[in-house]
């Protein structure tokens, strides 16, 4: 039995926990304001908000309901466009109307929900943050300029919030229906009621955020016996042990983004993460899922390869450590036993003299899968490279650590000659194929360019 609150209504359902939230809401609850656009998290027409209690703090995040199983909203509060409706238009809807930010209207509820997510997030009231909230929403009609103008208006309205709790502010200013005020208490009671309840004892599928698995196996997962890892508190958290950063396998990309520890050690973290999928996907996509999915182009995988991350697997009895660089044996083929579950990922935090860079080029800069991505982590002594790890995605059947290239560069000075040699060596250890993300020739040229970009300042590839 899955229990949660849908808008203002208590839900208890015996439908399969693998059914996606979107189908449940549209076809079983007959709330049709949320739309089906792409069924793979790429358009945002199905965006909903999910609220959960964390240390007695109620926090809402947007997600793509087409990729979210019911099992992942157990004990939470789900908000659809219907849950944001009051008499007349709320200020978000009003701003959208005033700016003519809706044409055919099909994507519109998704935009309204995402913008409500911005208002609930407690993020500072800037147009930039409001726009970031709709980075996962595709509109084919407006050209977005009217949506940008509406976002600016909404951000302006939110400036009055200052330090007030978002829910109180939004309720008081008629952004949200009055019953929102009771949700925290209701979630608390629901949590108490559910305490100790678990589901799926004999699972055939393990599932994190579902962002990739539901794209691949949408039809078969509905009736599968699933073990839900997303809310497993043992798999959460980002912490520091000595000079190492330990990340729980079910930590989300948003958790990384918001981690003070990572922000401190990766000053350009926001810039890097912005290149990875979109807000509603980052809110549910897990670090572990990205690694286990074994996509040759996984952004976090490439990121963590360059950091020489170490994984801890457990089969319940024993733990096993394995460096990430040894995990991939072939295309989607992992050095992992069927009963082994990824628990943590750890890496040495970059020291102050360690340089780190992440590059990604795709057809569309944001909300896209890379043509080629690459990360680089190195230290220098004088002008000589000491340790170096360059990773590359999209150029081989597996996410690749360019070992020969790295071996060559160790001890070399950063000069145009040495980097060009390194690129030539890289060409010998990659094997890109032509596909929808680019021709093999392009990927070869692009990887070389991205390797240059890692040394952009030293090679004077910048304009100023």
């Amino acid at each position, binding site marked *: 039995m899955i229990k949660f609150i849908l808008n203002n209504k208590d839900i208890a359902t015996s439908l399969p926990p693998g059914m996606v939230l979107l189908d449940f809401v549209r076809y079983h609850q007959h709330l049709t304001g949320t739309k089906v656009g792409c069924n793979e998290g790429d*358009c945002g027409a199905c965006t909903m908000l999910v609220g959960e209690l964390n240390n007695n703090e109620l926090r809402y995040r947007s997600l793509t309901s087409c990729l979210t199983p019911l099992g992942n909203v157990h004990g939470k509060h789900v908000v659809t466009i219907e849950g944001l*409706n009051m008499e007349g238009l709320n200020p978000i809807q009003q701003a959208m109307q005033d700016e003519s930010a809706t044409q055919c*209207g099909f994507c519109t509820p998704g935009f309204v929900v995402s913008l409500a997510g911005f208002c609930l997030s407690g993020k500072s009231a800037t147009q930039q943050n409001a726009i970031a909230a709709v980075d996962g929403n595709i509109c084919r009609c407006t*050209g977005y*300029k*009217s949506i940008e103008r509406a976002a600016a208006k909404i951000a302006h309205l939110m400036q009055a919030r200052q330090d007030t709790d978002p829910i109180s502010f939004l309720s008081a200013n008629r952004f949200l229906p009055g019953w929102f005020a009771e949700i925290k208490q209701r979630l608390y009671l629901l949590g108490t009621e559910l305490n100790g309840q678990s589901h799926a004892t004999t699972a055939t599928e393990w599932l994190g955020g579902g962002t990739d698995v539901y794209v691949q196996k949408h039809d078969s997962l509905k009736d599968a016996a699933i073990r839900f890892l997303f809310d497993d508190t043992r798999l959460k958290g980002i912490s520091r042990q000595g000079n190492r950063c330990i990340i729980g396998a079910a930590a989300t990309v948003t958790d990384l983004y918001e981690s003070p520890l990572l922000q401190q050690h990766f000053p350009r973290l926001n810039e890097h993460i912005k290149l990875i999928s979109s807000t509603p996907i980052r809110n549910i996509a897990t670090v572990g899922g990205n690694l286990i999915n074994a996509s040759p182009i996984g952004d976090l995988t490439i990121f963590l390869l360059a950091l020489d991350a170490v994984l801890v697997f457990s089969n319940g009895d024993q733990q096993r450590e394995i460096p990430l660089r040894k995990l991939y044996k072939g295309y989607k083929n992992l050095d992992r036993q069927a009963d082994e579950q990824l628990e943590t990922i750890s890496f040495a935090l970059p020291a102050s003299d360690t340089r780190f860079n992440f590059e990604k080029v795709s057809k569309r800069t944001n909300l896209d899968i890379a043509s080629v991505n690459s990360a680089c982590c190195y230290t220098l002594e004088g002008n000589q490279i000491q340790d170096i790890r360059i990773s590359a995605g999209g150029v081989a059947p597996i996410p690749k650590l360019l070992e020969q290239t790295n071996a060559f560069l160790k001890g070399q000075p950063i000069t145009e000659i040495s980097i060009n040699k390194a690129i030539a060596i890289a060409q010998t250890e990659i094997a890109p*194929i032509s596909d929808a993300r680019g021709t093999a*020739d392009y990927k070869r040229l692009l990887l070389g360019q991205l390797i240059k970009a890692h040394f952009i300042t030293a090679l004077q590839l910048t304009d100023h």
Partner: protein
Amino acid sequence: MKNIDAYTHLRGESIYLDDIPLIQGTLYGAAFGSPVAHGVITSLDTSEATAHPGVVRIFTYKDIPGENQIGGIVPDEPLLADHEVHFCGMPVAFVVAESIDAARAAVKKIKVAIEPLRVITDPREAQALGELIIPPRTFQLGNTDQAWQQCAHIFEGRADTNGQEHLYIETQGAYAVPQEHNALKVYSSTQGPTAVQRAVSRVTGLPMHLVEVEVNRLGGGFGGKEDQANTWAALCALAAHHLKRPVKYSLHRMEDMAMTGKRHPYSADFKIGLNAELKIMAYEVTFYQNAGAAADLSPAVMERTLFHCTNSYFVPHVKATAYSCRTNLPPNTAFRGFGGPQGMFMIESAIAQAAEAIGVDAAVIQERNLLQTGDEFPYGQKAQSEAPECWNKATGLYNLTTLRKQVDAFNTTNKWHKKGLACMPVCFGISFTKTLMNQARSLVHVYTDGSVGITTGAVEMGQGVNTKILQVAANTFSIHPDRIKIHSTNTFKIANTSPSAASATADLNGKATLLACTAIADRLRKMAAEELSVAINAITLQDEFVWVNGMKTDRDWKSLVMAGHTKRIGLSEHAHYATPDIHFDATREKGHPFAYHVYGTGIIGVTVDCLRGTYTVDSVKVVHDFGSSMNTAVDIGQIEGGIVQGIGWMTMEEVVYDKEGRLRSNALSTYKVPDIYSVPKEIAIDFLQTPHDNLAIFRSKAVGEPPLMYGIGAYFALRNAIRAFNKKGHFPFDAPMTPEKVLMALYATPQEGTIPPHEETSKHLAVDK
């Protein structure tokens, strides 16, 4: 006035096809598409699929009681494949089951054996083999053969444009509900309710008066639902007709992308000649249109390519030939611009090639050749031109000279980033080029409480046509807009409609509504004149009251209507409008096909990252010929949206088929349309108010398609930025300019082909990237 649907859109209360409350007993359909692009079906085994729990029946061509044919212009498109398949995704069977899951699961269990035949994906290959949809057509003006002698500069070249996926966010779909007397009611997400009605009638064998097609609204169409909604409606209708149960099919995104056609890819050879003053003296062009496996709307699209082959320029000697080439891709179809953009891209490429070779800015050639009023188009119509006005205002208002200096200064001081600038004048003809389609009807009912209900043939798909029609009625009756409701489009209420397309829907249906409202208003005015013993000319309706000689009376709208009903005056009207003055003689390829033209000039600025090959569109600044806009909010929305869609076509949107004709860009993860971060940082729009009388509704010129063509400027701006980094590199005119093409061009060598194509890469269009 804001879009009248905004309120329900923003609350998620607007009803699209998949939101219609279902009738008990509804079944669900799913189509089984051919896995092979071309071949002979040797066996089709549906036994395992039929046995799947929940499956009710699987339909094949054998179950069609009428004709297995949905081709509109040319009867060359079976609904369900009979013996041969002609494209990947071509419907072969239609599964109907008790649930969506069961239908989709059963589709996977259908087995088909197909003996493969030669797969053609390249239009030039098709043309060489004589695989043409219709005979080629040629538009001619002057005599190019003699004109070359007058030219100081002659250039020949080739240009290619790829397709474009419509990516309406609401996928295709239909819901067919059996009625008594064998009739069918079909809810469809279509731009062409009559086209759907005709297709259903043809397939089921039912006369059209038993087929009711209802369209509430679409979640985007862009041309993709002009002709290609027919398939799903006909399949659901076929099943509902047999099973006497409602059948619904709302396509999964990947089904939609794989099974439906897109904007036509084109390849073209051109030859352009200029005199010493850079006047274009002659232009010859041959278009190879990639039509896909069936005609669909390709002949009409091809025709519009010819109409717009000289864009906004006067060329005294023109010879333009077009081939509609049959390939084994899904039948390509209407898409905003309807062949016009492809024609314009080719002449812009020719101008760019000339400019690069001569060493002048393309804008110099563009400006010197703009259409003047009285100039003749290659199809015989004389221009009422706003082209120079738009150009002069744009280059002045946005200060082209300063913009160019800024770009040059930036490019001098920056090595790794380069800026590029391009001007894009646009001229687009308004009217269906098939003259008979330029007619529309409107049904207006005034009820005794003063409320007004209107039905037209227009389909609301986000373009705001219902808002404009409501404005027409509110204006004519001079009543508050809240009194008026625009009803769904329905073939039982309005018959024989033209599709909502060609930017002409508001003009045609708005004019019909104007006629209907005027007729009712005139009857009410006549009655009021008799009551008050004044001449009818003394009576006006104003602000919900009857006025006499400019003086308000106490007779209000509501009581006027009630009095009319009491006196048995008709409060309903069904009016017909046909665009006057238009004609076209296809035997001579001459005539006056367009009610009017829309003009404009855009200035597009971009910045390229020369290390990574990525880029941003910085600004699009436009002066656009609105005539006299009746709804600036709607019109600005159309322009901004059109520009971004055009830029998408020219930059990141890349339709990729492999050599076997399988779509590789088959999902939103592999086909990218602009997101909020990729759109121009600035879009500036200035209204060119043109005073001349025109045939537009309230002189508010059509705005749906023309702005898309400003996006073409993004291609040439990127090209200019690349050339600022790599002056000598050879790179072809080949859109879209993806980051891949940009990077390859930035590092291209002067000799063609020195970047060796990868073994899997073919040169021809849309194939194998």
